[in-house]
């Protein structure tokens, strides 16, 4: 039993539209960032650096609370 041609064409057409829908929320998010000037990924890098400085072994306490 084979899939009929009309269904096959419909599936291909709809899959292409789906790829656009998958990308839509990601595209809208970056458009919003570019309009509002937000850069949340930079905030994350900064947070990481802060954590690093606390646990840095060159600190006077050498990372220990004693």
């Amino acid at each position, binding site marked *: *039993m084979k899939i009929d041609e009309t269904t096959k064409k419909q599936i291909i057409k709809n899959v292409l*539209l789906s790829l656009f829908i*998958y990308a839509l929320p990601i595209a809208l998010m970056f458009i*919003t960032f570019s309009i509002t000037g937000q850069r*949340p990924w930079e905030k994350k890098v900064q947070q990481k650096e802060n954590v690093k400085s606390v646990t840095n072994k060159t600190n006077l306490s050498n990372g220990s609370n004693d």
Partner: protein
Amino acid sequence: MEATIEFIKKIVENLNGFGFPFLVFFIGVLEFSFGLYKRKWPKNERWVDIACFTLPRLVVQPAVAYYSLHFLPYIFPDAKNIFSWVPFLWGFAIIAVADDLTQYWYHRLHHQIPWLWRFHRTHHSASYMGMAMASRQNVIYTLFFSQIYLTAALVYLGLGIPAIAVKIIKSTITTLAHSSIPWDKPFYKYKVLHPIAWVLERLISTPATHHAHHAATTDDGVGYYKGNFGNMFFLWDIIFGTALISRQYPKAYGISHYEGDQWYAQLLWPIFKSKVEGSELAVDGPMVRVDIDKEEPVIKTTEINESGTTQEKYQLV
């Protein structure tokens, strides 16, 4: 705004633990108390439902755990939480689309590609709707055709909290769409609620649209197993032209030619086959069998050859 989002996150984290099992149990008790199965839960079906609810958890959950905890870190060791900076609401939108659209496609392909149908047939063989059949799936279908791997990958990349929020909302919508409690009926009955009904039935799966997908008949104005594939969002069916909205509930559910295949065949086909002759899950069964009302009537005759062997002949009426 940030405080509100933090508050929602905390609710989401707590609901993930107890919310869903409680919802299923509560609706299940309601359904049985009000006799909504109308005594349509025969012994064989009971075994299929219970086996499908319990046994896949022993296979699928360890598989997903292995994929999330070993496979993904091994393949993408530096990618863990790489997108944890994505704001909650955007993460929610990304996961909701990725998870539910993928499930829409798996579901649709199992109905439209004849070779795939038998992996999904178990979910449609019940002649009733409700909590008892909501988890009824062939284990191969659950294991290999699950959007959970895509969602788990997004969780690994840092979208964990939005994924839990989507899971809770999606579980609630799909559970209520399979339920035998027609919660959407008042929206069709009272004129003042019609605008809400119009939006709801196009946005999410409702008992009316999802029950139509489980109907024993199709193209009769109510039943429509050729479409209404959406799980959480019905919007996909609207966009892709696979929707039928009738605001009615089918008279009969299931598969018209179903004759109670054994629970092990329904759970593990093609590893185990059905003993029911002519079943799609039987050894020599057809890939897809047409509905009984669409079968062409035939006369079966048995002839004895010169060699003494019998031969069955079928003639169209």
